[in-house]
C-alpha cells in the first residue's frame, strides 16, 4: 500500500477497538513468567552449551599473547573462542566498534574470548583462567579536554557543516535580551533489565539465533555480514525482548560469539553478557557539552538561536545529535546549529532512547527557562509566543499537525501551574524547599516501510505475522487491535506473531517509529485480505462491511470464517510512504510539569508530582501509550538526578559498570505520574493517523526537573545529573 496523501476516512476510524484502553494481550504471559526471552529457550534446540565472555582489561592497545591452556583443560570446557584466531568480524553499517576478532583493543571490555562449556558455572570459572598479556597504548578519554579542538561534523557534502538560517551573529548582537550558557550531559547507559543474550545453532550452513533484538532485519543483515554467510542463511527469532532503549538496535558481541562458537564447536551455544560487562562492552549515550545562545525581543520572541554540541566517539562513530530539535522547535528568523565530535577511545557511543533530543532538550529547555527569567516572563508563555506552525528553516514547509500550545495550556491547567511562585527559593515547608518547573519537548515522527502477513484460518482466527518486535512498547496489542478493527473481529480472534525474520520485514522498534508503521503495515495487509475475502465470498461493490465477525454486502452476510472454509486465506502487504514526510514536517510534542522537594539540609531532591501533556496524533492504545510516556519520564528522572557513567580518564573505562554503581530510578523515586493525550489525529502520518510516543516522554522532562530544582533552591545547575554535590554549598546556611 502506497501512502502518498493524507489519510481519508478508513476502517480504523471506526475506533471500536483501536483507540480503546486495551490491556496487553501478552500480559497473562508476562505476568506469569511464561513469555520466553532469548536465553531461556531450552526447547528450541537440544544440547545447548554455555558461553561466558571475557572482556578486555585495557581500553586501547593490542593483545600480545593469550594463554588459554588452563581454561581449555578446565572441567566441562568444550573449547575457547579466542579473538586471536579470527579476523575482525566485518561490521554492519551501523556498528562502530569491532565486535570480535583480531588483536586490536578499541575499548574496555571488548569481547576477546569466550569459553564454551557444558554448564554456566564451568564456563564462567574457565573464563577467569585465561591469561592475557596486553600492549597498552595511549588513548583519549576526556571529552572536556578535547572539546575545544573538536572539529565540526561533516555534512552530506563531506565538508564541515554548520546549519544556518538568516544571520544569527547580527541578530544575536542586536537582541535586547540574551542568554549564552553552556550545559553538559554525562554518558548514560540503557540498563535494560534483560542482558543481551543469544542462543545460536547451525544446521549445515544455516544459522538460527534466538536473541534479544529490536531490529530483526538490521540484525539479519549485519549478522550475515559478520559471519560471512548469505542473508538467507540467517534466521533471527526474538518474540520477547526484555527492554532495549536503543541498546539492542544493532547486533552486539553476544550474537557474534555465540554463532562463531556454535559453528566452531558444532554445538548450539547460549550466551548472555554478564551485567558487569554490558556497560563497557556495548554502547552508551555519549556525553555532550552544549553551548546555547538565545536572543529575544522584550516580547519574548526569539530573534536569534544558536545551539552547538560537542560529543565524543570512537574513530568513525557519529555524534550525539543534540541540536536536532533546535532546528525545528521554536520560531526565530536567525539560527545556527552545529555538531562537533572528538575522537575518544571510550566504548562506542550510539543510540539510546530519543538520541539527540534527550540530551539536547535537557540543555535547550533549561536555556528557555533562564531566558524566561531574564524576560520576567512565564516560561509557559515564552514557549507559546515562540510556537511555529512551519519548519523555521523552510517556512514553506508546514508541520503536518502541531499542537504544542495545546500541550502547554492543558498541562499547565491540569498541573495548577498558575499557583506556582515564580520567585526562586521562596517556597519552604519545614526542611523542604518546594519547587515547580516545566519544559517542553519535541521528537520527530519517522515513517518507515513496514510489512505484515495475515492469515485467516477456517476457524475464524486471524494470525498476523511480522518481524516487528515488542520491546515493552505494546506492539502485540496494537497490532492485534489494528487487525481486529480492520477485519471486524473481536480482539480475542486475532493472534500476533512477532520478531521472526522469516516474517515480512517491518519497521522494527526504534526511534519511536514502531507503533505507527507496524500497525499501518498490518492495516495494509488486512486491506488486501479484505479484498481476498470478498472475492472468496463472491462479494463485490462498495458497500462491503467487516463487523462482528461477519462480512456483509447489501442483504448478504457471511461469517468471516466462511471465506476460509476451503483453506486458509493469506495476504501480505507493506505500507510504503511517498513524499508525505518531505512536504510536511511530522513531529510530536509534549509539555512537562514537575514538582520537587529539595532537602534544605542535604540537598536531596525528591520528585513529588510529574505531569506530561502530549500531542502525538491518534493514540492507538491509551494504556500502553501512557506506559510508554511514564516510563520515559522515569528514565528522564534518572538522567536528571542520578544517572552518570563515571569515566576513568586515565584508564579509559566507565567505572560504575553495574546496576549498583549506575543508579537508575527505583520505585520510591517516582511519584504518581499523570499523562494527558490531546485528542487529535494526524492524517499525514499514515492510515492510522497516529504518531510515535515511545520517546516523547523523555524529551524535555530532565529540564523540567532541573528547572523545578532551580525554582526550589535558586541554584541554577547546568551540569547533569543534578547531584547534591553540585549545589550543596549554595543551599541556605544551616
Amino acid at each position, binding site marked *: 500500500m502506497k501512502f502518498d496523501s493524507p489519510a481519508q476516512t478508513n476502517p480504523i476510524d471506526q475506533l471500536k477497538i483501536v483507540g480503546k484502553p486495551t490491556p496487553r494481550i501478552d500480559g497473562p504471559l508476562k505476568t506469569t513468567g511464561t513469555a520466553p526471552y532469548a536465553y531461556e529457550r531450552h526447547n528450541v534446540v537440544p544440547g545447548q552449551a554455555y558461553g561466558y565472555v571475557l572482556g578486555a582489561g585495557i581500553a586501547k592497545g593490542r593483545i600480545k599473547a593469550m594463554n588459554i591452556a588452563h581454561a581449555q583443560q578446565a572441567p566441562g570446557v568444550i573449547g575457547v573462542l579466542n579473538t586471536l584466531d579470527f579476523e575482525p568480524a566485518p561490521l554492519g553499517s551501523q556498528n562502530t566498534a569491532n565486535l570480535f576478532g583480531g588483536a586490536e583493543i578499541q575499548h574496555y571490555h571488548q569481547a576477546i574470548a569466550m569459553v564454551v562449556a557444558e554448564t554456566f*558455572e564451568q564456563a564462567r570459572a574457565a573464563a577467569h583462567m585465561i591469561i592475557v598479556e596486553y600492549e597498552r597504548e595511549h588513548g583519549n578519554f576526556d571529552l572536556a579536554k578535547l572539546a575545544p579542538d573538536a572539529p565540526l561534523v561533516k555534512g552530506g557534502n563531506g565538508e564541515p557543516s554548520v546549519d544556518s538560517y538568516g544571520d544569527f551573529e547580527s541578530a544575536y548582537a542586536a537582541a535586547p535580551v540574551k542568554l549564552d550558557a553552556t550545559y553538559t550531559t554525562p554518558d548514560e547507559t540503557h540498563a535494560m533489565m534483560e542482558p543481551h543474550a543469544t542462543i545460536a545453532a547451525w544446521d549445515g550452513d544455516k544459522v538460527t539465533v534466538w536473541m534479544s533484538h529490536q531490529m530483526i532485519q538490521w540484525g539479519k543483515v549485519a549478522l550475515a555480514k559478520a559471519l560471512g554467510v548469505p542473508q538467507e542463511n540467517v534466521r533471527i527469532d526474538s518474540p520477547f525482548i526484555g527492554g532495549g532503549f536503543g541498546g539492542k538496535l544493532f547486533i552486539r558481541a553476544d550474537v557474534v560469539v555465540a554463532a562463531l562458537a556454535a559453528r566452531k564447536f558444532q554445538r548450539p551455544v547460549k550466551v548472555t553478557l554478564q551485567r558487569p560487562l554490558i556497560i563497557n562492552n556495548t554502547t552508551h549515550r555519549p556525553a555532550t557539552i552544549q553551548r546555547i545562545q538565545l536572543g529575544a525581543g522584550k516580547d519574548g520572541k526569539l530573534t536569534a538561536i544558536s545551539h552547538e554540541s560537542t560529543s565524543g566517539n570512537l574513530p568513525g562513530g557519529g555524534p550525539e545529535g543534540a541540536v536536532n530539535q533546535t532546528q525545528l522547535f521554536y520560531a526565530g528568523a536567525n539560527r545556527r546549529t552545529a555538531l562537533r565530535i572528538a575522537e575518544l577511545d571510550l566504548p562506542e557511543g550510539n543510540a539510546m532512547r530519543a538520541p539527540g533530543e534527550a540530551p539536547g532538550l535537557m540543555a535547550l529547555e533549561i536555556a528557555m527557562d533562564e531566558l524566561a527569567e531574564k524576560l520576567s516572563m512565564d516560561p509557559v508563555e515564552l514557549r507559546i509566543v515562540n510556537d511555529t506552525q512551519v519548519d523555521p528553516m523552510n517556512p514553506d514547509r508546514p508541520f503536518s499537525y502541531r499542537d504544542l500550545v495545546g500541550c502547554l495550556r492543558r498541562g499547565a491547567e491540569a498541573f495548577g501551574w498558575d499557583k506556582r511562585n515564580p520567585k526562586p527559593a521562596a517556597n519552604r515547608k519545614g526542611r523542604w524547599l518546594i519547587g515547580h518547573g516545566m519544559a517542553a519537548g519535541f521528537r520527530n515522527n519517522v515513517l518507515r516501510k513496514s510489512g505484515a502477513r495475515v492469515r485467516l484460518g477456517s476457524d475464524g482466527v486471524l494470525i498476523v505475522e511480522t518481524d516487528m518486535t515488542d520491546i515493552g512498547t505494546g506492539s502485540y496489542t496494537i497490532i492485534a487491535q489494528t487487525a481486529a478493527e480492520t477485519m471486524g473481529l473481536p480482539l480475542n480472534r486475532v493472534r500476533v506473531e512477532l520478531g521472526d525474520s522469516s516474517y515480512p520485514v517491518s519497521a522494527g522498534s526504534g526511534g519511536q517509529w514502531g507503533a505507527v508503521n507496524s500497525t499501518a503495515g498490518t492495516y495494509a495487509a488486512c486491506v488486501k485480505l479484505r479484498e481476498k475475502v470478498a472475492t472468496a465470498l463472491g462479494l463485490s461493490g462498495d458497500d462491503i462491511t467487516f463487523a462482528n465477525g461477519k462480512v456483509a454486502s447489501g442483504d448478504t452476510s457471511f461469517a468471516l470464517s466462511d471465506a476460509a472454509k476451503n483453506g486458509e486465506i493469506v495476504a501480505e502487504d507493506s505500507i510504503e510512504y511517498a513524499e508525505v514526510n518531505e512536504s510536511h514536517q511530522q513531529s510530536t510534542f509534549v509539555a512537562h510539569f514537575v514538582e520537587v522537594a529539595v532537602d534544605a539540609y*542535604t540537598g536531596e531532591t525528591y520528585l513529588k508530582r510529574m505531569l506530561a501533556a502530549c500531542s502525538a496524533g491518534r493514540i492507538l492504545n491509551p494504556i500502553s501509550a501512557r506506559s510508554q510516556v511514564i516510563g520515559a519520564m522515569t528514565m528522564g528522572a534518572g538522567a536528571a538526578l542520578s544517572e552518570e557513567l*563515571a569515566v576513568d580518564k*586515565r584508564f579509559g573505562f566507565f567505572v*560504575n559498570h553495574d546496576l549498583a554503581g549506575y*543508579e537508575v530510578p*527505583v520505585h520510591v523515586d517516582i511519584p504518581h505520574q499523570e499523562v494527558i493525550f490531546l485528542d487529535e489525529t494526524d492524517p499525514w502520518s499514515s492510515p492510522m493517523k497516529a504518531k510515535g510516543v515511545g520517546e516523547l516522554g523523555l524529551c524535555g522532562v530532565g529540564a523540567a526537573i532541573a528547572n523545578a530544582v532551580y525554582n526550589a533552591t535558586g541554584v541554577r545547575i547546568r551540569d547533569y545529573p543534578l547531584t547534591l*554535590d553540585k549545589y550543596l554549598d549554595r543551599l541556605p546556611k544551616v
Partner: protein
Amino acid sequence: MRAFTYQRASSAAEAAKVVYNNREAKFLAGGTNLIDLMKIEVETPTHLVDVNGLGLDEIAPTEEGGLRIGALVTNTACAADERVRRDYGVLTRAIVAGASGQLRNKATTGGNLLQRTRCPYFYDTNQACNKRKPGSGCAAIGGASRQLGIIGVSDKCIATYPGDMAVALRVLDAVVETVKPDGTTRAIPIAEFHRLWGDTPEIETALEPGEFITAVVLPKPLGGKHLYHKVRDRRSYAFALVSVAAVIQPDGTGRVAIGGIAPKPWRVESADAALPDVAAAARALTAGASPTEENKFKIALVERTLAGVMAEARS
C-alpha cells in the same frame, strides 16, 4: 567462580576450626556479599562452611538489660524485633536504610559486619587494588572517587566500609562476640572491630583467622531519640554518600556516628561532647580529613546532614 566444596557446620567452634585450618575456606551465612564477590572472583574460596544451621538466630535479653542478637539473625528479623524497634530505633532505622527488602531477608547480623567495600576498583579485577591484591596499587586514588572515603583512609586504600547497620551499632556501643578456633570466646567492642586501612587494607577487621562471630550484644537502652539519615543519589537501594546515626537526648546531648566516609563507622568522642553544637561536632568528626577533589563535598555534607538530624531530634 572457583569450584568449592561445601559443608554444613555442626557447631560454631567446629566451623571456626575448619576455616582456621584451611586458608581457602570461608564461612557462608546469608551469602549476599560473598556470593556476589565470588562470581567475579574477588573472593575465591575453595571450601565453604555453611553456618546457617547453627541456631544463632535468636534475639534474647542480657542480664545487663540489653539484647544479644544472634549472628544469624537476619537484618529483617533484627529490624522488626519489637524490642529493637522500641529501645534501639537507630538500629532498626539503619538496617532498613540499607540494601533492599529481599537482601535484608537474607543478610545476617554477623555477615553484615563483614560486608566488604563497594569501591568500584575493588570490584573490577582488571584494576589495581591493594585490598584485593596486596601490593598491586590503588587505582581508586586519582580515579573515580566520589563515593569513596575522606577520613581514616591511607595512601594504600581510600575505600569505605559501606554498611549501615554497623553505624548504628557504633552509636550504641555494641559488642561483637566471637568464638575462636581453639574454642575460646571473646568480646570485641564495635569501636575496635573495623580497622583503618593503613598499610594493610586487606585486613579489614579485628577478627583472627578462623574467628567466628556468634552474636552482637547491645548494652542497655540509652533512651533519647533514635535517628538515622542516609544521604544517597537515589532514594533507596543505594549506598550512602554520607549517613548519620544519632541518639539524641532531650537536652540535645547525645551520640553520633557517621557512615560512608571512612573504613569504619566514624565516631569521635569530642564530637559527642560538642553536641548539640552541630558545627563543632562536625568539625571534630571531619578533622584530619583528606578528601579527593571528587568527594570533598562530603565534609560539608556531614555537617549539613548532622544539622538536619539535630533539627529532627528537636522537633
